């Protein structure tokens, strides 16, 4: 009897093992993934669910950035579960209103939303909390502290992390390590050519390497490419620059506002210094550089025209494409810092022996499920499937998808060397820069409050007017501060303060 039971058990085990292996190979072949990683969000687990006859409506960005993986995984989800999945693609400029209007008018238009994480201040009343079983999944447990923080509102996770974004410095190692270039830089500035540790150094390097053909391809090169077009995400570039001077590591209670008084800080000497250096840098940009949007910045650095840039991952990934002329000739570094930082408590500049850095955990793509959705289970299953280990590993390798590292496991340099053929030094600089931002105690987050678009739009207009020479940096930011006061009054000081307190809690590491 015992022998028969043992034989049966062994047979069953063999059968299960073989079927699992077969299924795993099958998914890899069918869906172009490397391996299905077992777990609640895996291909096998989702395949076991039956959503036939049910419909999932998704709103996302235009193809390719985030729109393409949304559509790809929606099609796979349909095949696995039998559900009908409708994906609506919307250009970024229209995305907020296309999400917000149905919410405000009581319609149940979309079950799943993909959008910019900084809109959490506006969208939080309409989002469903992520259920515990998804929060406890291995994939979610692997998400880094930054992106758990970004997804959280009132101690509740209401955004489902699918991407990690931050601003960091990218530069050309072939130029920085070239003895001739080093000698030229030293002769012009009297100091060694090093990766910029402050924004003053960044501007100096950019100035020396602007307007001549240092790449030897017959075309003029430039020191820096920056996102400077007013309505094309320029506000994020300005925050990256100003944070170094306006975010004091020892001053708590608000970066954009003084949380206690809700007095805007946007025109304090730290921000003004950041803008002065932004304006100074504009003199050395490539022709038309003041009209560069994110696409231009990606192309200028990724295409080899610019020596340095700073923004999201895209330019770096572009530089590392198989056909890139500068593949494996780039490196990543933290954003430059400042030797002097404005202390709004004492009203003085404080000096630092080592430059103070303020990593900007800039907004990026996130996802959520509508609180009004009648298919929440299916919606969360879709997001769980979207971000399962196999899909994420595949998506990270396709630059145009806009999916960037956001889990601890993504910061293994071997992944980038083995899967994408990056040089070891480059991969190390990349993962160390990105993971280093997580451990910082001086992080800056977006202004995640109701009406964030109004605040950012006002700031971008002020900064653009200073770059265009229509106003001095101080005048421009004084105008922004006055407008911010009006916005706070309109929305309600308590409403803004209550939301901003959550941002401050993140920045103050509470």
């Amino acid at each position, binding site marked *: 009897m015992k022998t028969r039971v043992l034989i049966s058990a062994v047979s069953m085990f063999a059968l299960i093992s073989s079927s699992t292996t077969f299924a795993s190979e099958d998914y890899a072949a069918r869906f172009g993934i490397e391996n299905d990683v077992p777990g609640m969000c895996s291909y096998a687990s989702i395949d076991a669910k039956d959503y036939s006859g049910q419909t999932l409506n998704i709103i996302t960005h235009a193809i390719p950035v985030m729109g393409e993986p949304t559509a790809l995984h929606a099609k796979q989800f349909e095949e696995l579960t039998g559900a009908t999945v409708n994906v609506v693609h919307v250009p970024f*400029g*229209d995305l*907020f*209103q296309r999400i*917000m209007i149905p*919410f*405000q*008018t009581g319609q149940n238009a979309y079950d799943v939303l993909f959008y910019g994480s900084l809109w959490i201040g*506006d969208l939080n009343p309409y989002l469903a909390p992520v259920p515990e079983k998804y929060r406890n999944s291995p994939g979610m447990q692997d998400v880094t502290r930054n992106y758990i923080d970004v997804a959280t509102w009132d101690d509740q996770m209401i955004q489902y992390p699918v991407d990690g974004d931050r601003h960091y410095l990218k530069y050309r190692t072939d130029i920085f390590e070239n003895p001739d270039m080093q000698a030229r830089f030293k002769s012009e500035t009297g100091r060694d050519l090093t990766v910029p540790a402050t924004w003053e150094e960044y501007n100096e390097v950019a100035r020396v390497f602007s307007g001549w053909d240092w790449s030897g391809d017959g075309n*003029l090169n430039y020191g820096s490419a920056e996102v400077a*077009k*007013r*309505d*094309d995400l320029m506000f994020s570039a300005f925050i990256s620059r100003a944070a170094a001077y306006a975010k004091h590591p020892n001053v708590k209670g608000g970066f954009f506002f003084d949380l206690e008084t809700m007095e805007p800080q946007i025109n304090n000497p730290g921000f003004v210094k950041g803008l002065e250096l932004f304006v100074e840098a504009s003199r050395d940009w*490539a*022709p*038309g*550089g*003041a*009209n560069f*949007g994110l696409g231009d910045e990606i192309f200028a650095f990724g295409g080899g*025209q610019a020596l340095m840039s700073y923004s999201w991952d895209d330019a770096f990934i572009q530089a590392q494409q198989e056909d890139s002329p500068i593949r494996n000739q780039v490196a990543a570094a933290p954003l430059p810092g400042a030797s002097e930082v404005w202390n709004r408590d004492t009203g003085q500049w404080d000096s630092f022996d080592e430059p103070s850095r303020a990593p900007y955990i800039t907004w990026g793509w996130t996802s959520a499920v509508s609180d009004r959705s009648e298919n929440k289970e299916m919606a969360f299953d879709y997001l769980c499937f979207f971000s399962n280990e196999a899909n994420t590993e595949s998506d990270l390798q396709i630059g145009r998808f806009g999916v960037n590292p956001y889990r601890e496991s993504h910061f293994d340099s071997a992944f980038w060397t083995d899967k994408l053929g990056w040089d070891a030094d480059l991969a190390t600089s990349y993962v160390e820069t990105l993971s280093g931002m997580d451990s910082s105690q001086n992080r800056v987050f977006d202004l995640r409050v*109701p*009406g964030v*678009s*109004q605040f950012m*739009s006002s700031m971008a*207009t002020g900064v*653009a*007017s200073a*770059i*265009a*020479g*229509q106003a001095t940096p101080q005048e421009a930011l004084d105008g922004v501060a006055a407008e911010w006061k009006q916005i706070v009054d*309109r*929305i*309600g000081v308590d*409403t803004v303060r209550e939301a901003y307190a959550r941002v401050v809690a993140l920045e103050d590491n509470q």
Partner: protein
Amino acid sequence: MYGLTRYKLLFLLPGLLILLGIILFPLGFTIRVSFSGWDAARPGLDWIGGTNYSRLFADGRFWESLSRLGAIAFTSVILEYLLGFALALLVWRQVRFRRLTRVLFLIPMMTTPVVMAVIWRTIFHESLGPANDLLSLLGMGSIPWLTNSFWATVVVILVDVWQWTPFMFLLLLAGLLSLPREPFLAAAIDGAGPIRTFFNVTFPAMAPISVGALIIRLIEASKIMETVYVITSGGPGTSTETSSYYIFIRGLRDFQIGYAAALSVTYLVIMIVLLTIIAKSLSRYLVKNGA
């Protein structure tokens, strides 16, 4: 008789209702929204009285955008009129090429504005675009097309002129072709040269059509948006920001729906008043003096 009137009304009613639905309802709703504080934080149609309108009168950026729009619209429409008239006069007598010319000139007008704006943005890209390449081939320096306030305005006008001159050309050519031959024969018998014939016969005879063409184009040009959106985003600074682009920013980017509605209503009223005055003035000076 009563029955006939009733039937007439019954047959007209569906059309009238549709007309009311598609014209009056959106307008009425916009006016209602303009008295609300609808934005991202305050959904719905609350009542805040004239707050949006009082805010609007102190909004320098709106008034600047309106005067900028006036400058851009007038300049581009006048250029389109002059060029369109010149081209129409050129092909007026050239019957052999008229069909080909018409087709060629229709192309800019038929293309999607956003697509063309993207192409123009590429042409005027300061480091990669062919416009500056061409200038350097001719031994001239680069022009900061999109990063200098003056040149960015020139680019916006240029693109508008490129796109809409054909419209002016077609309208004016149709006008020229419909003119009676007798006044021209009389002028020829009197020994009038081409310039005198133009100023004393052609131009006055074309005055009513010219006024119509100018007004139609002014209405259209006052809504200029796609070119600004794609090529300059209103920049550098705010130097090419027009009223419609500003309203778009406030309404759809900032999500200040109530305030954007107030801006739209004010803009509509200003445009109706201004265009009425312009139409009356043009009619008085061109049509009456010319006739």
